């Protein structure tokens, strides 16, 4: 893409997105005053809230990452969008309505309502922060990538820009997680993706040349001389003798000149420039399917594919309920039934959305297969219009996609930073507004530092790490807390520390990218081991400490499960300043008189 024009078009598109969002924010600004805020938001209804949940949920991983993974892994990558969506099924079946009725706004709140332990609350807070940070890193990565693709600025610039915007939004409060604003985000993202995909599909159908998508088409070759400079260490699978010009390190040898590669795997170090002549077969990185046929088939790539697939499904299925920015959104549902209806709509909206990144990944395989050589598959969506269309359509559509991508990062990042900062300011840095602002900076500075230091995972995989830790900590907590009266605070703490600790210890080296590839598959998705372990630990330790079961557990369970119309669920006291201040209101019923029986 011509750099100058692309830059201006993208900026223009982003300004339009920001303007639309700001208008939505102003419209919703009538609901500003604290006590009216939630009541007014609650009159919006499940359709708005579902769009808001989906809008905030569709982050960099969903927008760019899914297309990139489909480009790399073909059918096997489809488990990511399936898993992202299926998490809401689990949430609906086990968590949505009861959690709403508990009156809790955050996960630590729920823990306090259900088990009443301050120490457990602190442990939960720690893991909320861990999960939030793990989820933020890919957002920053995606932002850096997007800006880099469009303007060729170094990656940290995009990340810094997003964080500045997020901080500004949070400080001024005008774009602050309002339901209407987030609902608009969903429709903006959907449009930003659907329009280019439709155009590209029409273009593809109208192509005169022999179809690229035929199974008998030869493996793609570079159409013109191209330089590849990977931003991480990669291993290329070369299928025929290839001569390349290398400046840097390949196969461990510092090289400056022509090299003849035999058909084998060849290591290329980060930052090395490799120049391929026109007509050379495109080698692919080893964790991608080698040819189009393999790419179309399931289980085509990677070692231990079946176990990794199942572990990923477990993590995604069970981790959604543990993401910090998901639960708070249910607070704008007036009651448990509305929470259920909302979740059903979320499933429909997500399903409608994911069709487009999937189709994009397929188109990318046809039009930009050289990304497979660079290992830079996350850029698939951004590169696609330029590779397939003429100059001006590519500019416009590319700008649209970039704007949508930025909308994705900003909305997800805002939601995450608000959640993490909220938890930080309530539990770690006490004090009202000033504490919250300081917490905001703290909330993103650590992920930013991490992202700058290491940048080696694909976006969707990076997000998968957050899911794995969330699934190993908050899923057992929520499921057992809502459905089992025998849970004790000691049991919950033991399960969270063990499951979450192990999951975090496993994913951290994977996130840092310091693992050899064989270990990567196993450790990057530990959920299939850590989740059952966490459940088991919670149950066993709770049984052992059964004297610590809260005395009013029956009343709490009643509150969680009784139908809304009986009026038994407690809500936070909004008379005070904001939802988070109303902790005592939630604790009140437990101090009421009445007989306590186990």
């Amino acid at each position, binding site marked *: 893409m011509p750099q100058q024009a692309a830059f201006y078009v993208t900026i223009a598109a982003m300004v339009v997105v920001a303007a639309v969002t700001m208008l939505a924010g102003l419209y919703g600004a009538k609901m500003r005053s604290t006590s009216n805020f939630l009541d007014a938001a609650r009159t919006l209804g499940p359709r708005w809230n579902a769009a808001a949940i989906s809008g905030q949920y569709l982050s960099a991983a969903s927008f760019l990452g899914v297309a990139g993974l489909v480009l790399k892994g073909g059918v096997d990558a489809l488990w990511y969008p399936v898993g992202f*969506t299926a998490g809401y099924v689990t949430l609906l079946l086990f968590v949505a309505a009861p959690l709403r009725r508990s009156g809790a706004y955050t996960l630590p709140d729920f823990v306090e309502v259900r088990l009443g332990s301050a120490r457990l609350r602190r442990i939960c807070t720690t893991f909320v922060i861990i999960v939030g940070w793990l989820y933020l890193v890919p957002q920053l990565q995606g932002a850096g990538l997007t800006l880099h693709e469009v303007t060729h600025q170094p990656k940290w610039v995009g990340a810094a820009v997003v964080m500045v915007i997020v901080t500004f939004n949070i400080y001024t409060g005008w774009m602050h997680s309002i339901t209407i604003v987030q609902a608009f985000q969903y429709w903006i993202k959907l449009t930003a993706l659907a329009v280019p995909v439709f155009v590209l599909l029409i273009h593809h159908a109208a192509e005169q040349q022999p179809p690229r998508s035929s199974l008998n088409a030869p493996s793609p070759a570079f159409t013109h001389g191209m330089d590849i400079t990977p931003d991480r260490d990669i291993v290329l699978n070369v299928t025929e003798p290839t001569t390349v010009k290398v400046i840097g390190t390949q196969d461990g040898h510092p090289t400056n000149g022509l090299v003849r590669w035999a058909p084998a795997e060849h290591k290329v170090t980060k930052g090395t420039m490799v120049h391929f002549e026109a007509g050379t077969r495109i080698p692919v990185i080893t964790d991608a399917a080698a040819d189009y046929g393999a790419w179309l088939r399931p289980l085509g790539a990677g070692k231990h594919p*079946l176990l990794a697939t199942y572990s990923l499904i477990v993590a995604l299925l069970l981790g959604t309920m543990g993401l910090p920015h998901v639960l708070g959104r249910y607070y704008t549902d007036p009651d448990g039934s509305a929470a259920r209806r909302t979740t059903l709509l979320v499933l429909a909206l997500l399903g409608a959305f994911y069709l487009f990144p999937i189709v994009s990944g397929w188109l990318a395989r046809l039009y930009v297969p050289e990304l497979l050589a660079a290992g830079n598959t996350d850029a698939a969506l951004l590169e696609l219009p330029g590779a397939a269309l003429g100059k001006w359509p590519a500019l416009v559509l590319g700008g649209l996609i970039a704007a949508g991508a930025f909308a994705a990062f900003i909305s997800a990042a805002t939601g995450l930073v608000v959640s993490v900062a909220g938890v930080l300011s309530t539990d770690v840095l006490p004090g009202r507004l000033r504490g919250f602002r300081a917490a905001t900076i703290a909330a993103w500075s650590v992920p930013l530092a991490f992202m700058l230091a290491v940048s080696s995972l694909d976006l969707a995989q990076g997000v998968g790490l957050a899911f794995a830790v969330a699934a190993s900590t908050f899923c057992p907590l929520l499921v057992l807390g809502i459905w089992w009266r025998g849970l004790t605070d000691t049991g919950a703490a033991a399960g969270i520390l063990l499951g979450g600790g192990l999951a975090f210890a496993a994913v951290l080296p994977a996130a840092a990218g310091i693992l050899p590839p064989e270990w990567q598959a196993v450790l990057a998705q530990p959920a299939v081991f850590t989740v059952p372990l966490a459940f088991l630990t919670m149950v066993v330790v709770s049984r052992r400490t059964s004297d610590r079961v809260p005395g009013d557990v029956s009343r709490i369970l009643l509150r969680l499960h009784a139908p809304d119309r*009986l009026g038994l669920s407690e809500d936070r006291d909004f008379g005070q300043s904001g939802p988070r201040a109303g902790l005592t209101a939630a604790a009140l019923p437990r101090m009421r008189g009445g007989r306590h029986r186990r």
Partner: protein
Amino acid sequence: MSFGGMSDDANGPDGDPWAALVKAAEEAAAKEQAAQQQSGQDSTIYPLASRIKSAKRERIVLAQRRNSRRVVRTLAELEDQTSVGEVLVRQLVRVQLMLSLRLMLLTVVVLGAIPVAFLLVPSLGTTTILGLGLPWLLLGLAVYPFFVAVAWSYNRGAERNEQDFAEMVEN
């Protein structure tokens, strides 16, 4: 809707599990009330009464309810956590949990069977329908309406369980 007293309509193939429960509950409650009145306590303080009156429910009542005290008393029992109330809550929780587990199992089995199917029957991986690969149609398209169907089925079932419980309490 009922005209007072217990609802007589059958609640599905299980019959009416609540009826037997409530009968037992009434007997136990009668005993408890007798015991309380002996000890001088009046358990008939109904903190919920005002809340019930102010709840925004609209119901058309075609006849005066004969046992309105029972409504409030049952709710009070739920709130005060008598053994009666506890039994009712346990039953509700169990019914809801069974529903959730059933649907979760269905989802997991369907999702989990897909990789295994492709492993055991490799030809499935290359089958095409209307020119599109079967694995793509399954995982990229068909699962999403399946999720929505599961969700819709759950919502219906959960609402019905809750309605049964509420009606039982109110009648």
